[in-house]
């Protein structure tokens, strides 16, 4: 951490003079990398709606944490989202009901349950921070945890990426090559659920899915193969993350939403480039 303070201290930027901004910058870089990486496969697996549902279901996780009297509901959120993710991916693969319907059902249920519990006695305003998120509130301890998460995700990403790619093209084809389709899918769902849930506090559940989807969607417009796709997705995510953080500092706006506007801008530009290419 002190290395980071020293490094950022070398940069001649006004907005970096505060310690909380230095932490926020590091956090944005880490979160953007994770989101860019995961987002590329969330789109390939057609799971955009899934990750949205997981984000919203975090409300129930917060509520469960509140009932249990936890000061920090993160663990309750992670466990709940993880279970939900497994349930959805199981139903997606083994039930005849369409995935959209299954996810929509779960999302409606989880959001309603969360709001009902949290609004008991009119105290919902206390939790509205989760809707918008605040990256400036991140602590050094949380950044360390984020680093561990990144390491874990990257390792899994290296080990299972090819299998995930084949599954996204055709599950039967993947199975014919000995890939355990459901296992890999479940693992990926779990990974997305954990990353989304952990990040909600900083990004806000209203915009978190856009942060996951937009950079990858933009990268899709300009990529000719998978390698370009994944790296463009990460690059666009990082660019809009850093630009959004700086803009939100000067405009005093919510960081998560500002980042999303930045990536939306990049998406529109790539849409134009696609026409040219």
């Amino acid at each position: 951490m002190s290395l980071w303070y020293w490094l950022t201290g070398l940069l001649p930027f006004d907005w970096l003079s505060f310690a909380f901004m230095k932490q926020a910058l590091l956090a944005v870089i880490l979160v953007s990398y994770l989101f860019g990486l995961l987002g590329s496969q969330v789109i390939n697996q057609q799971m955009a709606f899934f990750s949205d549902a997981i984000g919203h279901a975090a409300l129930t996780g917060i509520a469960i944490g509140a009932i249990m009297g936890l000061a920090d509901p993160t663990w309750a959120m992670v466990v709940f989202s993880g279970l939900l993710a497994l349930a959805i991916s199981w139903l997606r693969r083994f039930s005849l009901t369409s995935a959209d319907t299954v996810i929509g059902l779960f999302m409606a249920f989880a959001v309603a349950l969360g709001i009902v519990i949290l609004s008991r006695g009119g105290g919902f305003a206390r939790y509205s921070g989760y809707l918008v998120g605040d990256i400036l509130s991140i602590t050094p301890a949380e950044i360390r945890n984020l680093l561990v998460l990144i390491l874990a995700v990257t390792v899994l990403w290296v080990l299972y990426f090819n299998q995930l790619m084949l599954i996204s093209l055709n599950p039967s084809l993947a199975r014919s090559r000995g890939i355990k389709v459901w296992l890999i899918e479940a693992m990926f769902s779990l990974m997305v659920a954990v990353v989304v849930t952990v990040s909600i506090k900083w990004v806000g559940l209203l915009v978190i899915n856009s942060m996951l989807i937009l950079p990858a969607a933009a990268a899709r417009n300009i990529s000719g193969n998978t390698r370009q796709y994944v790296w463009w997705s990460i690059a666009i995510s990082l660019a809009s993350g850093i630009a959004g953080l700086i803009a939100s500092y000067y405009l005093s706006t919510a960081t998560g939403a500002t980042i999303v506007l930045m990536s939306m801008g990049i998406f529109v530009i790539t849409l134009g480039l696609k026409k040219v290419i």
Partner: protein
Amino acid sequence: MAVDNIIISDRSCGYCCTKLVKLGVTFGQNRILEDVNLHVHCGQFTAVIGPNGAGKTTLLKAILGEVPHTGHVHFIDSAGQRPDRPLLGYVPQKLEFDATAPVSVRDLFAGAAGRRPVWLGIGRNDRSRAKEVLDTVQAGHLLDRKLGQLSGGELQRVLLAMAITPVPNLLLLDEPVSGVDLAGIELFYKMVSQLRRDYHLSIILVSHDLATVAQFADRIVFLNRTVIADGTPRQVLSNQAVRQAFALPPELALAFPEINPEHKEGQRCISCNLEKSI
């Protein structure tokens, strides 16, 4: 069968035959397949035909182990052993995917062949190996194209190339040429016949295009929930039930030779015939 006319091909893949015994598949109340008995030999190109909803695709999925089934699927190698899971090559019906997916032919190959994640780049070896296999199905020039930019026939040839890397014990083709133009169909089947000869592969092809398939297959199985007719194209085309289902004129069967000249009936493995007790 007389044992003395058995010749084991020296080109044999070592794998021998696939035996389906009393295979049945039920989805809820629907009985899709029942009591299917089939015995497919190495080096034999078997076409499974039948009307829509006859359970053809389900049959392949049962062999792939994708749908639960009753009865047995045995894979037997030339030593009479039964490997639990032989290498299966599979070409799906029509790859349904997002046409804008940023996956190139090269990505598909490298992703299927190795563990090195394709987002970290593809090695030169992997690249040249993919090119080599693609060349065998006249698709080498497609290496750097995105999957969405391929025509129906090109995509199926790419998938065929992928299915034979590594060379499988059993190649399963599920309506591989639906949506492919006439020239593409001809080319695709020629490739498949060639592969059967070169690698002595067992091939099971599912199709409803009887006329085309009859020109290339060694054997035709008419399936409608269970095996209705089974034999050489000539035998099956003269079968009453098949002629009714496909509204065939009776003289059509005579257009086909008794045995496909490209197939030598003698190329069988001893163990298949000794394993009758299974």
